[in-house]
């Protein structure tokens, strides 16, 4: 009896998610022939549960749940070495990026610390128009419940004139806030 392996997500929702990831990443997972060059060159593969090649394989097999549950999509440093080296032209780094956004939208956040960092970073930009580094670190520490993290660096930073005491805000901060609001109402792209 002939048996064919059917690839692709089983649920319609899964199919949709994979299609969206590919569209956002502007690349095709079908091009990948699993050579593993991405994983070989990945500087953070040592810390990942599923290295880049496996993430692509999951997507090829329609196993989108496994991708969203992977810690690797949160560990990826977006260094783009994988995309630069892929002999098939798959933009793996963008796939990681799009998968992270997909997981975020689905509320499946494996690594709270990264998500909290991004949130803290963007809330600063939204309110002041610029990044306020000191506030960012403080907020990140509070939200991740590690109040003394990097505390030993605070004073030396100040001594070197590397911390401004107050956030710097721009004249057009309302304009920037509006950019955030418009995008929030538009939803994801």
């Amino acid at each position, binding site marked *: 009896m002939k048996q064919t392996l059917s690839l692709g997500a089983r649920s319609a929702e899964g199919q949709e998610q994979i299609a969206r990831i590919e569209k*956002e990443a502007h690349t095709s997972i079908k091009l990948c022939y699993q050579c593993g060059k991405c994983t070989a060159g990945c*500087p*953070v593969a*040592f*810390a990942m549960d599923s290295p880049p090649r496996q993430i692509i394989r999951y997507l090829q097999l329609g196993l989108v749940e496994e991708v969203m549950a992977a810690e690797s999509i949160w*560990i990826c*440093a*977006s*260094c*783009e*070495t994988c*995309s*630069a080296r892929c002999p098939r032209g798959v*933009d793996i*780094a963008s796939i990681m*990026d799009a998968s*992270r*956004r997909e997981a*975020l939208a689905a509320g499946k956040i494996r*690594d709270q*610390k*990264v998500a909290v*960092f*991004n949130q803290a*970073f*963007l809330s*600063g*930009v939204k309110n002041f*128009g*610029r*990044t306020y*580094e*000191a506030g960012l*670190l403080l907020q*990140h520490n509070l939200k991740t419940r590690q109040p003394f*993290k*990097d505390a030993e*660096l605070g004073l*030396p*930073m100040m001594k*070197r*004139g*590397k*911390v*401004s005491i107050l956030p*710097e805000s*721009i*004249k*057009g*901060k309302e*304009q*920037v806030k*509006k*950019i*955030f609001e*418009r*995008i929030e109402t*538009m939803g*994801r*792209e």
Partner: protein
Amino acid sequence: MPLGYYPGCSGEGSGIEYKMSTEKTAEMLGIKLKELEDWNCCGATSAHNTNQLLALALPARNLAIAEQMELDTILAPCAACYNRHRAAEDKAREDPEMRQKIAGIIDMEFQASSHTISVLEWLAKDVGAEQIKAKTTRPLKGMKAACYYGCLLVRPQEHTGFDDNEDPQSMDQIVRASGAQAVEWAYKTECCGAALATSRPEIGAKMIYEVIQNARGAGAECIVTACPLCMLNLDMRQAKAGQQYGEKLDMPVYYLTELVALAGGYTQQEVGIPRHFVEAGSYLDSLPAKAAVIEAAEEAARQAKAGKKGPAAKSADGSQEEEASQKKIEAMKKGFQKNPEKMASRLIQDEERAKILAEIVAADEKKINKLAELMARDQEKASKAAEAYVTGELKKREK
């Protein structure tokens, strides 16, 4: 036209030396920087981790401001700022629909007509190593530097483009133009861990440690960077990364612009050296002594070469050598008469200037003789003389 300037958020905080030294470098080169008015944060990695439209719209507001100020080119020293702005302008140029959409979101006129450049592109391509060499008054001879490009200055190639993404050379060229030695090493474009040093410190520490180890293993005595996040990780977090491996690390890390400005005569104070975490002043102070040792060795090698044959052998050999060199000079002269363009291109890289040199020598036999003599003995001196002829000629033409 002044050069547009986007200092970025880190310029006011953790990357203050980068801002100081970039501005000094521009001053040294006689370039006027015009800061974008009321610029906003580019959103960095956090924006493109979160929402693609946001990642395009935040830089687009700055690009639109640059258009209002009629600035074609914007210098963004921070590698992330540069990368995000370049990505946004490229996307908007190739996708007019997206450009319209972004214009709507930022509620501004947006043509995507300005170009964002990095410090590497600015110094290596627009200014050029020759010009930096010409402005170098205190060469950093004796310095052994590992040029660290990291990620965002060279990747993705379709945005960054101008340098090779596996073995980039632009920073090496600039470092050499400042008089330092650029060592060959394997971790030029490895990642420093970026924000992982904050969110997952144990992972970040390993990445930082490996970059420093690889540089040290290749014989480097310092690391050079053109990215404030690489600097933050390699400099501020170096001691702790070493601790994780039971080692005391003390590798000084410099911004490329610090080195260029120091070589151009600015003081350590002026470019921000005392603000580093890993003490970076004493290595700079040690360079003159190192340079003296190298120069003495070079001199000794020269003398050994000259004295090797001994005075008796010299007279017999001498005439032969003299004859050979005379033949070489004659060949050079013939070359100049037959094909001045080709000979000129051997002396001057710049095509236009080489053409002018060809015109000069075609009309002046004395200059042919002089250049032929120099070329037979010392190519570098010949190039210098050729450049001087062209510069003189250009001045004459201007009058």
